């Protein structure tokens, strides 16, 4: 299977690999996937309480090139967005941007789930109610 140029680029030069302090109140962490399934994504956001803007985003991913690229792209998109805007990122825009083939769509779903999980973790830490999301269909 041939990868798209964009997937290869993210794989070779991943953006925002790393770890934020998960104990910090301004950091939300989302850990999704499972080792048995061959993909685990951890996505973290740092939020400015006053402005509600995402000031930093980091990821670490265990998975194939498409999973790495999906999470790398997600962190790029998250930075500079407000939390509300971040909630609007959906997996199909990741699929389109990276030209993921059908067999790799689950990688983009995982990235979307990781974003939502990170936002909910941030909300919970700061006394806000968790947002209830519809279950992903693909899992």
């Amino acid at each position, binding site marked *: 299977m041939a990868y798209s140029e964009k997937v290869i680029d993210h794989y070779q030069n991943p953006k925002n690999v790393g770890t934020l302090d998960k104990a910090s109140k301004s950091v939300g962490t989302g850990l999704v996937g*499972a080792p048995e399934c061959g993909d685990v994504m951890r996505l973290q956001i740092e939020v400015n309480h006053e402005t509600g803007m995402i000031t930093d985003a980091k990821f670490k991913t*265990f998975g194939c090139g498409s999973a790495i690229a999906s999470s790398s792209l997600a962190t790029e998109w998250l930075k500079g967005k407000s939390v509300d805007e971040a909630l609007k990122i959906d997996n199909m825009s990741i699929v389109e941007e990276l030209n993921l083939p059908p067999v790799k769509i689950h990688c983009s779903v995982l990235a979307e789930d990781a974003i939502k999980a990170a936002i909910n973790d941030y909300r919970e830490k700061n006394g806000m109610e968790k947002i209830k999301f519809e279950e992903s269909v693909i899992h």
Partner: protein
Amino acid sequence: MLKLPIYLDNNATTPMDPRVLEAMTPYFLQHFGNAASRNHPFGWEAEEAVDYAREQVAKLIGADPKEIIFTSGATEADNLGIKGIFEMYASKGNHIITATTEHKAVLDTCKHIEKQGGEVTYLQVKPDGLIDLAELEAAIKPTTILIAIMYANNEIGTVMPIKEISAIARKHGVLVFTDATQAVGKIPVDVNKDGIDLMSFTAHKMYGPKGVGALYVRRKNPRVKVTAQMDGGGHERGMRSGTLNVPGIVGFGKACELCMLDMEADTLHIIKLRDKLETELLKLEEAYVNGSREHRLPHVANISFKHVEGEGLLMGFNKNIALSSGSACTSASLEPSYVLKALGLGDDLAHSSLRFGLSRFTTEEEIDYTIKAISDTVLKLREMSPLWEMYKEGIDLDSIEWAAH
């Protein structure tokens, strides 16, 4: 000079040896006859070439040439051997014993037989990939007609105790079929010393052409017969109809002859390189060899690099190194290798595996390049693996409740 890409997927197929191609060439344009044409020189030449190749093939496995049935490859030979015995010996029984780590060509054939009213026992393997001989013996019943256990596994290279298996089979009057696709030409295989009644193998795994293989069918002690699976002109003593692939068979014969001549030198060369590759890669933390290291083909190494995913790993170098992974992601099914899972490996380790298959053409330079490329990629991917970070922090990954997909 190192030439890229490097080919280390020799369990999938081997490059052809130029000496094989040379032997085949005249049989395309010049001696193109049908080996079954009995009444003119074109046919005679073709038949003579096939007879000679049959001798070369038989010699490599210690068989009589009359015991070689040419087929289109190992899959066909597996089908013919197993279905052919099931049908031919129906009056004697309907039970077959095999193992969970067999190739799909054997497993799916067995499933087909189950649908036809046969009964199949699938033996589990031990963590080293070998079957338990006591379990095998205990599985034999009065209705057992065949034990089908592979000579060596295609994913992990584990070599089964065929002699011991056939001794048990003999004791109970059961026939032994073995898929020796990965073993023939690589390690000494002798149908008499090993007590094999039927054996499948193929040319393209031993530097020969694709599209030609063979089923060995024992003629003496006992005389074994299989029911043909294709109707037609009654070629190959009535067991396999279809015009013989003369150039392919000539190439197969030559490949067998070369394997016999070169086996010792090839093995020395390959083992040295395989061991170097393995020793160096095992210097990485949390790297494990899958399957028995003691009972193993000389050219195979299957290694798991914990906390990195196989397909992601391959992507780091697959433009330059051809390898295969036990990871699900390389297949459409999203299921990791059933062979690795049968060893009791967790899905995570199965997802993290690479299979190396060396050949007589592999060079030390290629192995050095591979060691470096893989080590670098493993380290790079671990830097971005959340599992590796957790492992390093001493977190027990099994204690985490993963959101299962």
